[in-house]
């Protein structure tokens, strides 16, 4: 089975999906990412799907799952590079990709993650549990 590589760039994990993934490879990626988020303490995950020529319900579900898992592990996930034909097809298929943040490219994705982190700190300032939130 092929495995999708995960790169660490600063505080962010970057996954660039370059192969037509089998379902098993997709499930493996989900597990590998969860482990890497914890091992590296990363607060952001960017999944680059520029090279993917389709997203079906299995991959869509995997993307949603990665977003939920990383949220629980205190990391933001952004999916970048979705092709227009893929977006059109997803909508007709009926996939909503709930809870998934998207951006045009990796650079915008990084900005989105930085902004989301800044917002969180800002909000935490006003909270009673500001210290635990800010230092976690």
């Amino acid at each position, binding site marked *: 089975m092929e495995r999708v590589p995960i790169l660490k760039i600063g505080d962010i994990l970057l996954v660039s999906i370059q192969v037509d993934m089998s379902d098993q490879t997709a499930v493996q990626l989900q597990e590998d990412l969860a482990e890497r988020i914890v091992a590296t303490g990363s607060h952001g995950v960017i999944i680059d799907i520029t090279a993917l*020529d*389709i997203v*079906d*319900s*299995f991959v*869509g579900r995997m993307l949603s799952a990665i977003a939920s898992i990383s949220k629980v592990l205190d990391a933001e996930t952004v999916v970048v590079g979705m092709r227009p034909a893929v977006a059109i*097809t997803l909508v*007709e298929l009926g996939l909503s990709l709930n809870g998934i943040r998207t951006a045009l490219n990796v650079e915008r994705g990084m900005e989105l993650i930085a902004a989301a982190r800044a917002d969180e700190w800002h909000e935490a300032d006003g909270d009673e549990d500001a210290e635990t939130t800010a230092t976690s």
Partner: protein
Amino acid sequence: MTAGIDLGMPATQAIRSDEDVVRVRQLVRTTAVAAKLSLVDQTKLVTAASELARNTLIYGGGGAAEVTTIDDGLRRGIRIVFTDQGPGIPDLDLALTDGYTTGGGLGLGLSGARRLVDDFDIRTGVGEGTRVTVTKWSR
């Protein structure tokens, strides 16, 4: 059923593993490119094929996909037939409902595939297996 004459022999891909589902996607993509379907139509057809091939594997216990380029005199199209000798689908209307799944999926494979193609035909019976035929025409 689909009108039109077959252009050439169908290409058949067995569906017995995860990797075979990937091969079905690749076969359909290559055939759709050769038939000059638009990029969006290629994407819709490959996505539908991916959903149906996965169903053939998971629910049908494996089977095959047969991909044929067809012509109705006005336009080209791609016909794909998915067959399995699995348990069949007891309630087809229910299975075609968005969100209905017996396997912990999203329940969008059958209903979504139907929306993504031009013609969709399904023959199934309990204990008789399942045969899904889809066609996408160039426009």
